[in-house]
């Protein structure tokens, strides 16, 4: 005789998955805002496109998988994937590139594994990496309105002209003639948030410091630092709200810091880069606080998280300095994802009342 009975506890906390996802998105906003301030509307167009496409795709897939549409859509997880993906994409990418990437992220990266909670890899990074391997040229060039560079003093990427040019970059078919598009596109090709063309980024930063630009100058050279600080702030918000634990960001940043301290030889002509460059010159902050901490694909025990962070940190550094790939964060995070199940299995905390964790020591005594 069994009776359906609710088991204790009857009282529950306030934080819910959908709210949690919204908070993650909110924490991205400072970074996105600063990015827009410096580089124009490209990021926002990317995010909007990705979000719209993600919602439609998610709804389609849920219908196909015969799930309750409203219930599963409202967990907002597709939203987070789309926002992170939009941020990672080079601004000014053509619309079809964004759509292809987000489609891969949602269809293959997420639902092919069984949906939220089952995906072994960070979907946004799956989509991103898919594009990077399939469209290396488009993915390694980063377009901002050409006038922002050519005529930096007078041109505001936030103004009407900026918006127009950004839209033209994303939707080339809007332009009356091909020449206009060409003129815009020719503007600039440089590193994306996740792609550090080593030399370019280093040079950019060195220039920035040498020339002592004012902090909020609208220059794409210094923009990087500010964007990173934006994401750092967002990350601190997440930490404060206890949505992410400190273990992953701290161990990633710590590892990168330590390695760059170890490797950097002042005065030499090597291109390994200073610690400062490694932390603020590229996408380290968004990687450490937003991408690597995606709970589903990360390690879950605290010790596991630290090792996971170290693995990612080492990979970031290695790929940046010695790898032939120009990108580091996406690959490093996916590499960490590979290791996460293993870490979860072996790095368990010592349970209350037990002598010691089964950490690579003797085989656990079950009793």
């Amino acid at each position, binding site marked *: 005789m069994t009776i359906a009975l609710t088991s*204790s506890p*009857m*009282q529950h906390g306030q934080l819910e998955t959908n709210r949690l996802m919204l908070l993650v998105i909110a924490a991205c906003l400072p970074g996105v805002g600063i990015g827009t301030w410096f580089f124009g509307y490209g990021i926002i167009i990317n995010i909007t496109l990705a979000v719209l496409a993600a919602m439609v795709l998610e709804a389609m897939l849920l219908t196909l998988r015969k799930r309750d549409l409203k219930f599963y859509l409202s967990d907002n997880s597709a939203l987070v994937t789309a926002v992170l993906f939009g941020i990672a994409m080079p601004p000014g990418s053509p619309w079809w590139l964004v759509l292809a990437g987000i489609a891969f992220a949602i269809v293959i990266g997420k639902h092919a594994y069984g949906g939220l909670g089952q995906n072994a890899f960070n979907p946004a990074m799956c989509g991103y990496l898919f594009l990077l391997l399939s469209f290396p040229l488009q993915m390694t060039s980063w377009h901002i309105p050409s006038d922002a560079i050519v005529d930096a003093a007078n041109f505001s990427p936030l103004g009407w002209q900026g918006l127009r040019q950004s839209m033209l970059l994303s939707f080339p078919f809007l332009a009356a003639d091909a020449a206009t598009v060409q003129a815009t596109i020719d503007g600039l090709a440089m590193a994306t948030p996740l792609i550090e063309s080593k030399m370019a980024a280093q040079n950019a930063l060195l220039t920035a410091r040498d020339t002592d630009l004012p902090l909020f100058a609208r220059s794409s050279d210094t923009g990087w630092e500010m964007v990173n600080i934006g994401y750092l702030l967002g990350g601190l918000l997440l930490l404060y709200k*206890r949505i992410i634990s400190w273990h992953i960001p701290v161990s990633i940043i710590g590892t990168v810091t330590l390695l760059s301290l170890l490797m950097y030889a002042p005065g030499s002509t090597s291109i390994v880069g200073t610690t400062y460059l490694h932390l603020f010159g590229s996408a380290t902050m968004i990687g450490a606080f937003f991408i690597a901490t995606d709970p589903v694909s990360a390690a*879950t025990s605290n010790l596991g998280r630290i090792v996971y962070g170290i693995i990612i940190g080492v990979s970031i550094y290695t790929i940046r300095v010695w790898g032939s790939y120009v990108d580091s964060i996406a690959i490093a995070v996916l590499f960490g994802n590979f290791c996460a199940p293993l870490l979860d299995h072996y790095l368990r*905390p010592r349970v*209350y009342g037990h002598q010691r964790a089964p950490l690579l020591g003797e085989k*656990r005594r*079950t009793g």
Partner: protein
Amino acid sequence: MNQLQHSRKIARKLRAHRIFGGIKPLALKARSLRSRIMPTPIPEMLILPLLQHQGSPAAPIVNVGDQVLKYQLLAAAEGPLSVPVHAPTSGEIAAITDAPVPGHGKQSQRCILLRADGVDNAIGLLLLPDHRALSHWQLLERVNAAGICGLGGAGFPTAEKLRSSIERGIELLIINGAECEPYISADEALIRERAAAVVSGAEILQSICLADRCVIAIEQDKHDALKQLRHSLESSSVELLELPTKYPIGGEKQIIQAVTGLEVPHDALPMDIGVLVQNAGTAYAVHDAITEGKPCISRITTLTGTPLQTPKNFEALIGTPVSFMFELCGIEESRHTGSIMGGSLMGLELVRTDVPLIKTSNCLIAKSRAEFPEAKPEQACIRCGFCATACPARLLPQQLYAYSRNQNLEQLEQLNLADCIECGACDYVCPSHIPLVQYYRASKQAISSRDQQRQLSAHWQRRFQFHQYRLKKEADGLQEEERAHRIAPEAAHQARGFSRDKARQEIAAAVERVATRRRNTIASSRESD
């Protein structure tokens, strides 16, 4: 680790320690603390289950129709893990029958139904103002006779716990005044109003279990109770320790960790590391039992919940129906959607309210939809790890959940599911509304039934092996018997110290003797001829 090392460790470490994990749920105690503890009126019918504790039920010694007095023994303990039941008031035994009792699901148990006569005539009580007059065994005997079991909720027979603690030797007695469940305020109210009695109970308990030190541990945000305690403790050797407010710091294992920094080994009991924990309510009941001779017939119970107009703490008679208690508080039936016995995090849901309040019921919550909305549908686990951060046993609830889902019992054992105290902290924080504790309970039951099956299998296997051995022996036995016949006489002779050679010599000697005698006879006859 031996006792000595432990005692040194405990003495050195007595201060507020951190416990693993834990959560800070919104405390809603103030509601029921607005008024003072109130004794309940006597209900018409009292339902007294024979099993209100962990262990075996008591055996009734009264018959239907008997007139009984208040404090009179109704059912005597049977066996060591049994606790006697006394009459909470005077009246007539209406029936001894199966009646619904609080428990998981619809459970009924043997109960004594007592129809109160409203007069409340009591038998005389044996007062004992100074407990030092008795030896600790005599005191223990009185605790045993008073029918006290752990009043904090677990309900382990107190006398038995004390007895085995005395045998093991106790360094530290912890009086658990930490009441971490967000709704319960019974112990807080008790300490606030009757601190002296609690302290005296603590002293009695200390002198029973012969602990070197005794500490009352209580959360630091219970200001009134703390003030009263400090006052009562001025002339006492009992110490006071303030603990941080955190759920589930009042759990037995957790409070030991919080007070001593030691963990109870997973395969041992608190007394094995020289610690004994008793609830503050139990200490109060012990005080009553020893100094006033009162058996355990009432307890302090919190009544709370938004459908109740006047939530408060009651000194309620054991056996009072839950519905009667609710009515005392002016329940608004229209808002009442269900009831919980115990706290909101570890309590059990009551399917009906005609069940009695028992010795372990520290709280009754009337649920309303606003306060306890229906369980939201389970979403996917996003592996956020909140649960692991909250778990006071430092388990990995999300992995336990994943393995519970596909009933991978081996992995669950590897992950120490058995160490889960079902506190519900993980469930509380889970953003995806996963009923984790229910998964664990189902899995624990699956494991235990599998273990039973395994024991049976092993037993059958042994018997089968013996069966085969027996058949073989019987078959061998037939041939063996024949051989045994052949060699038997010799063996028998050998056993008596014979040997063939010796026998031959003896025979030869005998033959020789006979021959000699014959020769002699012949010779002599010839001579006589």
